């Protein structure tokens, strides 16, 4: 059964059409890698899935709930979908621990002790339990991104969205974040990952998609995508990136 379904999703910024009809679906437990040139609408698309952007035409159904203007649905979907941003977006005025417990306490209404226990568990999972009492500004980029992943996981989401999670990182830190993501993928999490890390795609993706100019150009298994792409656009893209 597919946990995310989109039908002919279209999105305009003023006169500019950023998404020109995207139809796709994601099965539960699937890891989907989305790539494509800059400006092709990848971010816009995954941001539509948790309503950080609003699509104007088409349908998006997440876990059986359709995204409309109904605030209740939006809140329900947001608490099922975790998101990790390119620029981390941690809350700088809160400690790492507070960053992770905040949503549990205020949105999930858990008590403090329980949330802190969960937070420590997650920090151990992403490999930085010793940083719990520091502020985000005192951590390296890689550590910050891992905190951001832990923060999203704290809501116990069914789906995780990653928007170029390693693009703002120094090369030596990319691996530590990718390792966490690989572990997450193997644990059976449904993931949509926008990334240019082709190694990651080859290793853990179940499917790879190529966006170009607001359209979904190719959708394939990693094997086929890299070795035997259907479209010429994909060949061109791969030749530029590899």
């Amino acid at each position, binding site marked *: 059964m597919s946990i995310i379904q989109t039908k002919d999703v279209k999105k305009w910024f003023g006169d500019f059409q950023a998404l020109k009809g995207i139809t796709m679906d994601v099965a539960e437990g699937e890891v989907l890698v989305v790539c494509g040139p800059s400006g092709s609408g990848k971010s816009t698309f995954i941001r539509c899935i948790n309503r950080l952007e609003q699509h104007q035409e088409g349908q998006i159904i997440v876990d059986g709930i359709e995204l409309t203007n109904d605030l209740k649905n939006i809140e329900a979907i947001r608490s099922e979908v*975790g998101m990790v*941003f390119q620029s981390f977006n941690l*809350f*700088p005025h809160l400690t790492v621990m507070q960053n992770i417990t905040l*949503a549990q306490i*205020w*949105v999930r*209404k858990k008590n403090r002790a329980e949330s802190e226990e969960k937070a420590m568990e997650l920090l151990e999972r992403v490999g930085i339990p010793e940083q719990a009492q520091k502020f*985000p*500004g005192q951590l390296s980029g890689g550590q910050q991104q891992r905190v951001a992943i832990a923060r999203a996981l704290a809501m116990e989401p069914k789906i995780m969205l990653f928007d170029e999670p390693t693009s703002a990182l120094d090369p030596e830190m990319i691996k530590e974040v990718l390792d966490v993501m690989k572990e997450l993928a193997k644990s059976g999490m449904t993931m949509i990952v926008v990334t240019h890390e082709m190694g990651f795609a080859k290793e853990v993706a179940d499917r790879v998609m190529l966006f170009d100019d607001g359209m979904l150009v190719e959708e394939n298994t990693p094997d086929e995508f890299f070795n035997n792409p259907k479209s010429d656009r994909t060949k061109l893209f791969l030749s530029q990136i590899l």
Partner: protein
Amino acid sequence: MVDLIKKSAKSLQESLFSSVGSSVLTIATTYLVINFFRGMLGFALTSDKDWLAVLNNMQLYMVQAYPEEDFIRVWLSVGLTFVLAGLSIGIWRSEARVKSSQVFNSFFKGGLGVLFFTIIAPTNASFMGNDGSVITEEVLSMDSRLGILIPVVIFCAIFFSIRFTNVSFTVNSSDMVFFYLFIPVALLWFVKLPTIQLNQNNERIIPDPVMPIASSTKIPWTVIFVSFLVSYFIGMYLKNIKSIKSIMSLSWFLLPLLIFSWIFKKPQIDMSVVLGSDLPIFGVFLLWGFLVITFVNNALFKKYYSTYLGVTFLLTLAGVFSGLPMLAKTCLLLITLFSVVVPAVSTSSQGKRSLLIVWAVALVTLTFLLRGGASDTGIVVPGSSIFGGFSLTWLLAIFGTYVSFPLGVLLALGRNSKLPIIRIVCTGIIELTRSVPYITWLFFASVTLAVFLPAGVEFNLIVRVLMVTAFFSGAYFAENIRGGLQSIPKGQYEAADAIGMSPFQKISLIIMPQALRAVIPTLVSSAITAFKDSSLVTIIGLFDFLTIGKTVIGNQSIPVNFVGHDRENLIFVAIVYWIFTFTLSRRSMKVEKKLGLGER
């Protein structure tokens, strides 16, 4: 020991005499500073200066003409504040400890300061006599200078040499507050100064008899100090009660309201009005707000929402021009505003609950202010406003900030709102208020405001001034806070959305704390400006702290003669203003440092 001196000499040389330029600068500045203090001391010590003009007018300075039989109200207010402060310090008692060497060092430095002034004080000082001739007078003889120097040198030597013994302990930093406050309270009992006394013919007895200072206030102050201390211990004891911290915060929120009404009037509660009109009105509007909050996400309500808004608006219009009680009219206005705002902010059940609390508190405050502000005060002061002097300045500063800060937060949020009506109204209020000088608003308060109030409602001049002050500083706060809001990156909003926070949680937990932190320095300077600007109320006939010093005391002629003694008073006033603003800015620097931790 020798090492230490060598080391400090070296660091002195490095910081002050590192090059020819800096040596010249150091010497010139030292010369100027010493001369400045010599001049000041000479001025302060000559017999031409009558410091009794300041000392003997403390009551005037504090409360002006507030009736003496009602002083107990003032004392109770001060006492209540200290009790709350004591409880809070106890509950939030920090575990930080101060090293004894730090304390001794500050004593040593204080001693050095006294030494410095005693050494540079001039022996002779000149002043202009009444006939225009220059009179030279000995102000500090060598003997009395030695009399001060020797004990102070011994004092310094003791605290300097302690660091070479192994006397070393630590003190809890919260405990230190009480130690430092203990000193002035104890001094009240021991220090004696000349005091003005009148003989049977109502003439000043010359020379002035020497008496303990503050003979009339030392008992209240001691009682207050003791209750402060006691509540500190109680606070430590209460520390572990579950929601004690929120209770304390709420008490601090209510305290100014309580003090305000308590100082302003003898309670005159007309039970028939309370039961027959206030309570029913209060209940109706509480229920109305409750219903709006409950059904805000209901489909049927949503469908007819605009109809509901229209009807409410028409009702309000009709109500305002009808003979309804003032409270009902204001509540109608409030419910219209509330109905517009609710759908935008209320989504989760948590948000709904906080909204209901906000609504109830708003109604209580409103009822209280309308009943409190608009009725007769019961405290009569012939020919003057209820009080003046420091209490007026303090009231304008504290109450002005107290009301205007939340108002500023709301206006700033409103100006950033997505709803056009709210945005336009908030922008209008901010721009209108800021584009007119404060003095004009003061005249508006004293002369024009009554025209805009419904017939039968009359506010005391001080209340009216408070109203315009709240809006005036609120507008400035709003603009500062808006600047802070603009400095928050879009990613912060998105991150909060992505983890499912409601708009209310997003603003209060993520956005506002960061925005406020970014603007603390500007907020503090706004608060300091508001504190100092409060002296402008003299223009509409209120007697603030400065006016008392400059005008009132300068005109006291019989039986004392303080005419022409306004310089002493001005120096005193300036020092008091300085102490308060300086403390405020130092505190804010500390807060900034503490909050700045996350920024690195």
